[in-house]
């Protein structure tokens, strides 16, 4: 898992610029920090009566050069430690173990450069005795390292969290799309072939009815093709699809089913996941009508309640023991709601006194076409 993760991140960066955005911010901060250090050093030098301003500049630049060397080195290998970002102590530990080497190389390197430059301009670089220098610089370096290791940790874990969030979002989106595709596949074959057979049977006895059914089927097919790519649709559209579907089913089971629509006009402009209700109505037909020899009444009701929308599909009959485990249709519905709305949406299947109700509650959102 960690490996693919890193590879993906590396690929993404190779494709775009060489540095990620948090990394650029990090280097800008680094530069600003050193400009401040430089300004402070110069001010301090001048206030103490110094005349040769190049001296404090040299001191700071040498420190900057060696420190930058270490930071660049850290940036080059930081992916190696990305796996530890979730455990801060381990991540910091992995960095602290390099600290002795940093301290031991820093002081000799910095002082060697300074002595060299002083010698070149024919001056002598005077400073405290070496033991004092080593202690003083080490303490300064420790504070400095603590600050920057902490900052880098913050940046890296922020970058990683953002990447994970983006990936999760993409994953959820693809999941929702896959489910929509699956729903559509589920909807088509059985239903369409059965409807075609009904038309084929009807046209021998009732041509106008067969003709009407053929037109409804064409409407439904057209609508299916049209909204093919939309994840969210309007309640108006969704209800229209349900009506088309129900009209065709009613032709097939004319003697066994009656339908009632109680859809409040106020909800028609609301946004709803496409095909969310289709499986619920299909269930009402499948478990209500197709499993029962008695006449079944199916009711579709929708209303708005300030910031929420309630939709219920009821069919007379009872939840059979065998149906208690949720079918693919219902499970799909629930998963789509969770992916799209989190905890803000609900789907409940309940047994009322003489009927079964599938009730969906969604946050109200205006649909924008």
């Amino acid at each position: 898992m960690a490996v693919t993760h890193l590879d993906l991140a590396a690929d993404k960066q190779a494709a775009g610029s060489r540095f990620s955005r948090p990394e650029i911010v990090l280097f800008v901060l680094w530069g600003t920090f050193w400009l401040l250090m430089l300004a402070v050093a110069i001010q301090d030098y001048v206030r103490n009566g110094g005349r040769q301003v190049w001296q404090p500049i040299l001191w700071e630049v040498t420190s900057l050069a060696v420190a930058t060397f270490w930071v660049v080195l850290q940036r080059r290998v930081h992916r190696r430690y990305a796996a530890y970002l979730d455990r801060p102590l381990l991540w910091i530990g992995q960095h602290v173990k390099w600290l002795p080497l940093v301290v031991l190389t820093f002081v000799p390197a910095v002082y060697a450069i300074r002595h060299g430059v002083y010698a070149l301009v024919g001056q002598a670089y005077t400073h405290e005795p070496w033991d004092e220098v080593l202690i003083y610089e080490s303490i300064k370096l420790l504070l400095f390292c603590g600050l920057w290791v902490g900052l880098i940790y913050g940046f890296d874990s922020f970058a990683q969290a953002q990447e994970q969030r983006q990936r999760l979002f993409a994953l959820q989106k693809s999941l929702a799309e896959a489910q929509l595709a699956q729903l559509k596949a589920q909807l088509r074959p059985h239903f369409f072939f059965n409807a075609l057979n009904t038309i084929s049977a009807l046209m021998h006895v009732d041509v106008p009815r067969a003709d009407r059914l053929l037109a409804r089927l064409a409407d439904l097919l057209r609508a299916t093709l049209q909204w093919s790519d939309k994840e969210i649709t309007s309640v108006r559209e969704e209800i229209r699809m349900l009506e088309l579907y129900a009209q065709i089913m009613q032709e097939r089971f004319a003697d066994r089913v009656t339908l009632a629509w109680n859809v409040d006009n106020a909800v028609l402009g609301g946004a709803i996941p496409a095909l969310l209700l289709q499986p619920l109505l299909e269930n009402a037909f499948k478990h209500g009508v197709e499993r029962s020899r008695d006449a079944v009444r199916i009711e579709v009701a929708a209303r708005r309640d300030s910031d929420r929308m309630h939709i219920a599909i009821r069919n007379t009959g009872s939840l059979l023991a065998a149906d208690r485990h949720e079918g693919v249709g219902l499970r799909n519905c629930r998963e789509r709601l969770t992916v799209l709305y989190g905890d803000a949406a609900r789907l409940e299947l309940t047994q009322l006194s003489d009927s079964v109700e599938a009730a969906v509650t969604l946050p109200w959102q205006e649909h924008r076409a």
Partner: protein
Amino acid sequence: MMRVLVADDEAPARGKLQRWLSEQPDVEVIAESEDGLHAAEAIEKLKPDVVFLDIQMPGLSGLEVAAQLEQATAPLIVFVTAFDEHAIKAFELNAIDYLLKPYDKDRLLKTLSRIRGRPADGSARAAVATARAQTQSHDRLLVPVGETLQLIDSATVEWLEASDNYVHVHTAARSYLLRRTLQDLLEQLGDRQFARIHKSAAVNIAAVKAFTPLFKGDYEVQLRNGKVLRLSRRFKEQLFGRMGR
């Protein structure tokens, strides 16, 4: 004369078949069924030669109806379906007749002429066997209760007792009389749950309490309900092997 039963839950679909079949001089549609259970009852009562059996029906599906029939005496079955990838694959594989909705008259006539040339026994057997393989037919058993049929959970069956071509199905609550051979019933129920103990009896393994040895290698089987049956040598090894003794 070919006596035909048409089973489909959609009135227009039944009408279409009925009309076209009635045009045939050698075909008589003797009944129509609107659901699986009714179809099974009609098959039992009317003994049709051919059944056009829609797969998607309330109560019992067409496949479940076929799975509950006795292989040797089952009518010829033509499955009718709108879309059932798995089942259709199985039908193709076992040369079982089927019609895909919507079908035209030519297709129906072709099926009819194929049926006319069929030996009744072999293909009906294959249809029942395929239907059993496609459904959970070992979990449920269709039994007669008065004039009607009823589905019972096969786990409630304690033991089976054959007499001639009948089988007494004993559950804790009551017994049912099925006109089937023990052999055929055991084939349907599968050998995971039921085991034969002698020529004319089988037990639900879960209902067995103890075995007591008798002379000559025979045993007594004691059921949890107190009933004592005989286990013949012939079936002993097999049963003990399965019970891990």
